[in-house]
C-alpha cells in the first residue's frame, strides 16, 4: 500500500515527464521549420490510398510546394508567422505597416491587463526578429529569406515569436470577449479559455485562434483541409471570409504546414 501511495503521490509530475520524453523524440527528429519540398512529396505519406492520392492531385493543381513544421502543438502559430513574414519580406509597404502594428501592440496588451514586465521580454525579441528580416537588406530577398529560416529554427527566437502571437491572440479574445464567447463550446468562459487553450505553449489551435489572430493582425489565411472527407476535392476555408489570403496553410487532422501557390 505504501509503495502504491508513493507511486501515486505525484502523478502530475510523472505525466509531465512522460510528455517531455515524447516531445524530445519529436524535436530530435523534426526541424522546427523544414525546407521547401514539392507538394507531391505528400504521396509518399499516403502510399496507395486512393482518396488521398486523388486529393493531393487536386491540391497540386493549385500549389507547387509545401514546407513542414514540427508537430509540437505550436504548428499553427509557427506556420502562420513564417508564412506571413515570407510575404512581408517581399512586400515593403506591408512590412512597414506590420512593423508599426507590432511596435504598438505591446502598449495595447498592457492596457488589456497583461503584465508589462514579462510582456516586454517577448515583445523585444519579436521586434528584433522583424528587424532582422527587413526587406531593405542589400543582400536581397534570398538573403533575407535564409535569415528568416535560420531564426525560425533557433528554438529561443522561434518559440518567443510563437509566445508573442499567442499573447496577441489572447488579447484579441479578451478585447472582444462578447463576440468570441459564441465560438466556445462547453462551459468555458473566455478568461478560462485564454488561460487554458491560448496562452500556454504547445496547445493546439482551433478556428477561434485563427479568427482572432487574423483579426488582430489584419491578415488573411487560406486553409486547405486534407482529410478523409467525401469527394476528391480538397476543401478550403478563408479566414476572415471574403479576404484575399496572404498566408496559405494545409491542415491535416491535428497539424498545419505551409503551402506555396503556383
Amino acid at each position, binding site marked *: 500500500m505504501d509503495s502504491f501511495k508513493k507511486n501515486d503521490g505525484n502523478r502530475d509530475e510523472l505525466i509531465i515527464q512522460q510528455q517531455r520524453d515524447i516531445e524530445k523524440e519529436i524535436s530530435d527528429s523534426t526541424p522546427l521549420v523544414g525546407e521547401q519540398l514539392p507538394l507531391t512529396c505528400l504521396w509518399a505519406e499516403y502510399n496507395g490510398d486512393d482518396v488521398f492520392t486523388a486529393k493531393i492531385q487536386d491540391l497540386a493543381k493549385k500549389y507547387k510546394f509545401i514546407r513542414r513544421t514540427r508537430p509540437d502543438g505550436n504548428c499553427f502559430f509557427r506556420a502562420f508567422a513564417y508564412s506571413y513574414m515570407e510575404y512581408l519580406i517581399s512586400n515593403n509597404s506591408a512590412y512597414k505597416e506590420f512593423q508599426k502594428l507590432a511596435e504598438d501592440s505591446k502598449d495595447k496588451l498592457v492596457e488589456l491587463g497583461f503584465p508589462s514586465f514579462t510582456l516586454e*521580454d517577448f515583445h523585444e525579441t519579436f521586434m528584433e526578429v522583424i528587424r532582422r528580416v527587413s526587406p531593405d537588406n542589400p543582400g536581397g530577398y534570398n538573403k533575407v529569406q535564409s535569415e528568416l529560416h535560420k531564426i525560425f529554427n533557433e528554438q529561443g527566437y522561434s518559440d518567443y515569436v510563437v509566445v508573442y502571437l499567442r499573447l496577441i491572440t489572447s488579447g484579441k479574445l479578451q478585447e472582444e470577449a462578447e463576440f468570441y464567447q459564441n465560438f466556445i463550446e462547453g462551459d468555458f468562459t473566455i478568461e478560462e479559455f485564454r488561460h487554458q487553450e491560448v496562452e500556454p*505553449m504547445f496547445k493546439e489551435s482551433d478556428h477561434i485562434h485563427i479568427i482572432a489572430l487574423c483579426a488582430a493582425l489584419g491578415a488573411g489565411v487560406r486553409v486547405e483541409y486534407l482529410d478523409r472527407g467525401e469527394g476528391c476535392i480538397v476543401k478550403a476555408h478563408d479566414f476572415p471570409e471574403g479576404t484575399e489570403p496572404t498566408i496559405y496553410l494545409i491542415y491535416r487532422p491535428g497539424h498545419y504546414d505551409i503551402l506555396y501557390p503556383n
Partner: protein
Amino acid sequence: MSTPARRRLMRDFKRLQEDPPTGVSGAPTDNNIMIWNAVIFGPHDTPFEDGTFKLTIEFTEEYPNKPPTVRFVSKVFHPNVYADGGICLDILQNRWSPTYDVSAILTSIQSLLSDPNPNSPANSTAAQLYKENRREYEKRVKACVEQSFID
C-alpha cells in the same frame, strides 16, 4: 552561456529584488541560476500565519515556455500539497502562461495557502478535514507552522 531562459531568470531576479511582493522572497542558488531557493511567509488571518515555508524552484532551458518544478522543502499540511512537497496548482501545469515570472509563481502559491482547492486534492486527509472538520484542519496546519520555525 546566455540562453533565453537564463537571460529571463536574471530579469526575474532583478524584478524580485527591485519590486518584492509582500510575504515572499526568492533567489538563485550560489552557483546555479537554474535552481532557486524561496520562502513564503504564511498569509495573515489564515492558519498558516507566522509560518516560514521554504521551497525550491527548478527551471529548465525551456523556461518561460514551460513552467518550473516547484516543491515545498518545509513540511506543509495542505489539500493541494503532496507528501513530497510537490504542489498541485493549475498555473504550474496546464494553465501555465509564459507571462508568469517567479514573482507571480510565488504569490500564486501564497494565495493557494489561503484558498485551498479541496476538489483536486494532493493530500486527501487535508482536503477532507478542510471540508468536514475545520478545527482539526487548523490544528494540523498550526503544527506544521511550528515545525517550519525549526526546519
